């Protein structure tokens, strides 16, 4: 085998020594002044030189032996074919060069003068700029290299030395407006005809694959990357293997296809894997909004008859309170612009808001849960606000990015390239990142999004290490962002920008963190408002100085539980019924079921007249009084997920399938409702904190409600008498808030019972006997079937503060006290013996 043609070590060293270079080197028709050596390979070295006009050029001095059997002019002519393709460096001149070097007098070389490109080779760039390597950079890279490979194919050439040192990431010239980094291929002196194929271990395609593997690994090594980037890496792995496929008939080798497939991969990775046709496989898939990743599906399933929808969508700040599963998250996500944009048939004229949704239950909680003291919150207050601003900006950008694929919607919102640029400039200016890396061929919005995500990770890691972040986005930043959006895209003046912050509860975000964030939330701006959701008593609406108190009062509270209970008080029960029916019908439709809610469940009807009478006069063995849509709607006092759970249980027990249209038997409905109710009651014990204490309270009070129903004296209502239904407690508050008179232990239990919506705290009432307010608690209705109580309310346990204290400390004694003095029916208990013993409820052994 012939010796490899290459520079000797000594000659290479000599060529790289500036002292050995003449002041001028003539190549072809030009004369060049050497500046400094740039690189050295097996067969030559590269110098930066200057031509006679002072223009920088790259001079490659190649071993003459490599040209004994071919002419350098062939390579120059081949390179000339590629001049029209911008990815390739241009060869300006070429010719023999003779240099006098120590130990190598009159040594001949072939010189190639190439366009000088200021930049880093791919491998240098990946080492130096790891943090900016992103999926969009990779797609941009694939696009350029695919175009270059396509150009080579079209001209019948191969580069033949396309290793990562021969690809430059070229910086934009200083001062160029909208300057972008460009990918350029250099060392055009090795060009060969495409046929015959190379004899080297790797052809251009396989070098390209190597580059992609290096970029993949650079993204992977960042570690702190969002799931969209992880999904992208997973897609890339498959594409790379497809590019290396052994079977040529299925190998991904066509540059056009490669480019297309990587673009598709980026697009797929941006959104979670969803059911492509946004259908449900079963009506009860995704019982909770948190489980639905597909925005379109969420919009399709949303029941617009939700009784408190109208209040929630008003263009005013509001605080929606209620427990998990009450529909807050679904409502907020439905109000988000991103969800509506995901629905191709959504009528955007119907919505009056442009919502941007974030959930504190996920990212914010994980980042700031440890900031539990005012001192820590103050120490990191700039970083907390900065992170919050970044998170909301990310959501705005993600939403606008979802417009990208919809020309019609871009037109509707007036979102074009100039708006995109304005937004990018605004964000970069505030982040002081004017020199941020921007890549050719990638949307400005996507690059801005990647910068935001990087800044979020940076912020968190700096906080973790106890360091400060600089610069930070101030509390006024969001106002400026939304002002810009309103100015650049006037549609936002028409549709109020709303930041929808879900689960803004102390349980998720410590009070000191909320107090810091309130500076952003309460910043009064005409260009946006905030809507918050939280558990009851969960939001800390003050700021440390108390200066926001007035603004906090402007925030209207919508208590989901109260809204449902108030329907009954205001004789608007039909609204709850409509919601319960629509909720199920939307799901049945999405799952392709033939039956409807009305057909499968039907209305509630009792021969005794109503549910309470049915329960009390029940005959042995009869188990069918909890049934029908009216009854199910009444069970719901804000628990959307519970409603769905009941439906699901009924469908399972009733063996309902896609083709079923007959009604589920009443006894099956009854068993299902009671089973879910019992499970909900049992689940209380697992709640943290105070689960066992709360379970004790709710079990005992539930039993009291049932005992009064069964044994209490009937009360007059117009011309008739009705059974007493009293799932409510009313406590006079002669000295202001009842909470202030509780011990710490009692107060924390009381707050937890309300926070978890085990009891729903109604608007304070007015005592009948004294001119004082009353604390009014109503038991969440879903627990009532477990204790075989009715669902309505026509009376209340009206007691004093001392009783309430006893109730929280010793519910058994407090409830016995009430029952003992309650006026009983003369006829005595009208119930069947099996009503008297409810496992887990009545058995003293089960009580703690």
């Amino acid at each position, binding site marked *: 085998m012939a010796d490899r043609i290459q520079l000797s070590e000594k000659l290479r060293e000599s060529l790289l020594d500036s002292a050995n270079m003449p002041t001028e080197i003539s190549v072809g028709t030009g004369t060049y002044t050497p500046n400094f050596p740039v690189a050295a390979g097996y067969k030559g070295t590269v110098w930066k030189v200057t031509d006679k006009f002072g223009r920088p050029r790259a001079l490659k001095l190649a071993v003459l032996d490599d040209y004994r059997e071919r002419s350098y002019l062939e390579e120059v002519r081949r390179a000339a074919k590629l001049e029209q393709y911008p990815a390739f460096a241009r060869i300006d001149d070429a010719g023999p060069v003779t240099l006098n070097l120590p130990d190598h007098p009159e040594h001949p070389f072939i010189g190639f003068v190439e366009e000088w490109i200021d930049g880093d080779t791919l491998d240098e760039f990946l080492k130096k700029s790891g943090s900016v390597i992103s999926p969009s950079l990779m797609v941009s890279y694939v696009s350029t290299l695919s175009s270059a490979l396509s150009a080579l194919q079209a001209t019948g050439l191969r580069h033949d030395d396309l290793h990562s040192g021969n690809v430059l990431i070229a910086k934009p010239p200083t001062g160029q407006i909208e300057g972008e980094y460009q990918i350029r291929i250099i060392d055009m002196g090795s060009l060969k005809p495409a046929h015959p194929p190379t004899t080297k271990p790797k052809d251009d395609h396989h070098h390209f694959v190597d580059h992609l593997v290096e970029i993949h690994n650079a993204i992977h090594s960042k570690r702190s990357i969002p799931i969209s980037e992880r999904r992208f890496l997973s897609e890339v792995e498959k594409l790379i293997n497809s590019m290396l496929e052994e079977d040529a008939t299925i190998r991904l080798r066509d540059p056009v296809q490669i480019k297309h497939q990587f673009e598709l991969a980026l697009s797929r990775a941006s959104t979670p894997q969803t059911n492509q046709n946004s259908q449900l496989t079963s009506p009860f898939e995704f019982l909770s909004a948190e*489980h639905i990743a597909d925005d379109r599906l969420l919009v399709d399933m949303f029941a617009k008859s939700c009784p408190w929808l109208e209040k929630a969508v008003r263009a005013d700040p509001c605080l929606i309170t209620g427990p998990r599963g009450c529909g807050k998250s679904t409502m907020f996500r439905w109000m988000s612009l991103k969800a509506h944009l995901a629905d191709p048939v959504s009528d955007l004229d119907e919505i009056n808001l442009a919502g941007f949704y974030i959930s504190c239950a996920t990212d914010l909680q994980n980042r700031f849960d*440890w900031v539990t003291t005012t001192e820590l919150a103050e120490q990191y207050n700039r970083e907390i606000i900065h992170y919050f601003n970044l998170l909301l900006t990310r959501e705005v950008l993600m939403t606008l990015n979802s417009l990208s694929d919809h020309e019609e919607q871009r037109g509707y919102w007036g979102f074009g390239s100039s708006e995109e640029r304005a937004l990018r400039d605004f964000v970069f200016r505030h982040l002081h990142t004017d020199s941020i890396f921007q890549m050719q061929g990638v949307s400005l919005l996507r690059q801005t999004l990647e910068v935001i995500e990087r800044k979020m990770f940076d912020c968190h890691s700096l906080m973790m290490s106890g360091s400060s972040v600089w610069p930070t986005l101030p509390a006024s930043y969001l106002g400026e962002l939304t002002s810009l959006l309103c100015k650049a895209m006037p549609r936002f003046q028409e549709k109020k920008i709303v930041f929808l912050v879900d689960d803004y509860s102390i349980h998720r975000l410590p009070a000191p963190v909320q107090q810091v964030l309130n500076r952003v939330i309460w910043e009064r701006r005409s260009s946006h408002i905030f809507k918050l959701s939280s558990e009851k008593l969960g939001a800390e609406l003050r700021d440390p100085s108390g200066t926001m108190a007035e603004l906090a009062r402007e925030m209207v509270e919508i208590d989901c539980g109260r809204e449902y209970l108030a329907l009954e008080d205001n004789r608007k029960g039909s609204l709850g019924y409509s919601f319960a029916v629509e909720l199920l019908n939307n799901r049945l439709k999405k799952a392709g079921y033939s039956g409807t809610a009305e057909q499968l469940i039907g209305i509630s009807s009792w021969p005794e007249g109503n549910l309470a009478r049915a329960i009390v006069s029940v005959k042995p063995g009869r188990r069918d009084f909890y049934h029908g849509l009216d009854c199910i709607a009444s069970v719901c006092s804000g628990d959307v997920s519970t409603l769905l759970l009941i439906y699901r249980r009924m469908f399972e027990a009733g063996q309902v399938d896609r083709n079923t249209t007959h009604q589920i038997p009443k006894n099956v409905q009854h068993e299902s409702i009671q089973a879910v109710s019992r499970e909900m009651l*049992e689940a209380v014990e697992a709640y943290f904190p105070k689960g066992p204490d709360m379970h004790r309270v709710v079990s005992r009070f539930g039993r009291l409600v049932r005992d009064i129903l069964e044994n209490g004296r009937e009360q007059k209502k117009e011309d008739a008498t009705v059974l007493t239904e009293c799932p409510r407690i009313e406590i006079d508050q002669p000295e202001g808030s009842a909470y202030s008179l509780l011990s710490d232990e009692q107060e924390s239990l009381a707050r937890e019972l309300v926070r978890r919506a085990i009891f729903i705290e109604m608007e304070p009432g007015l005592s009948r006997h004294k001119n004082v307010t009353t604390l009014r608690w109503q038991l969440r209705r879903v627990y009532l079937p477990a204790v075989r109580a009715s669902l309505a309310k026509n009376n209340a346990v009206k007691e004093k503060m001392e009783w309430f204290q006893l109730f929280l400390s010793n519910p058994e004694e407090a409830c016995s006290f009430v029952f003992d003095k309650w006026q009983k029916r003369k006829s005595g208990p009208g119930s069947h013996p099996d009503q008297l013993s409810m496992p887990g409820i009545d058995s003293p052994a089960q009580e703690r």
Partner: protein
Amino acid sequence: MPRARKIELSTIIGKLPDIQEFDLPEDQPYGPDDLFICTLGFEPRCLKLPGMLAASGYRSERVVVFEYDTNIDENEVNREELFRYLNAISDRVIPLSLGNPDHTNQLRQILRSLNLGAYAATPRITFDLSVAANRIVVTTMAILCEADADLNVLYSEAEIYHPTKAEYQTEPSTWQSESALGLERGVGDVRPSREFPGQHFDQLPDAVILFPTFKAERSRAVIDFVDPSLIGTQGEHIVWLVGAPPLDGNRWRTEALKEINRLTGKDFQREVSTLDYKDTLTTLESIYSRLWDRYKLTISPIGSKMQALGSSLFAYMHPDTRIVFAIPQEYNAAQYSDGWRKTWKIEFGPLPEVRNLLESVGRLEVEA
């Protein structure tokens, strides 16, 4: 033809050190170290390794001792003796209170100060996690993983873990009931790890990986914290990793754990060694590879200390995974563990190499 191959955990796991029995032969002195980390607890084994090391003449430039904010009185029982050993080991004993929410940064600062000096040799650290709560194990390992140091982990196994089989079988309810003290009582707090918060930006459902304990309420509190609607549900989104002790005599505990946590054949469950941290690592990896792109993942490592150690290395490898702790209100100091049996060592060596190994998982290599 070449293929692109992803580096899997299975490729590198053999390069991570195994847990091995630790002894102190007279002719092989241990140390010296730049930092020794341990915990003041109420279990007798709290004293085992510090005592052994002090007796052998082991020295460390500094000692960090974590102090709990629970069972404070019970822990005091071991204070005097532990500090006597620690003072023999080092002239600089630094207590770190877990009650201080910023104690993790204090530890970081101490670690940074070990690297001061242009010509300083790589610092050597020994972490005795015998009585460290799992949140200490996870947090400390997370912080150590950031450091350029050589690390040895030491562990003293208890002679008896309560309940014993006899204790459990005599009165199972004492150990199962939530109101009874058993090994511990109540849940004092549930919180995500500051060091491993995950990357949960996007709208995906939650999945929880739990290492159940003898108190079902701790696992339930974690599920409730993550998503209350998952309580009582079964499916791939709730994975139970039930501890399997290495000693045959303790195997009954695996079944007891399943019983207490009411696990049935319908629950997604795997048995995982309580001693071999690599088993935790590989098991978590196999679960992760199925779930990572469809769920926001949360791990609750409230099982054994070695499971917690494996979980922390796993979370370092996959920073998109969140770790959540459920901290009991109080532990039963009178009946937690007795005595000590074997002592163990994991010789991690240079942490930058451990980091490189863990970070390499998921990289692509082109094979010829």
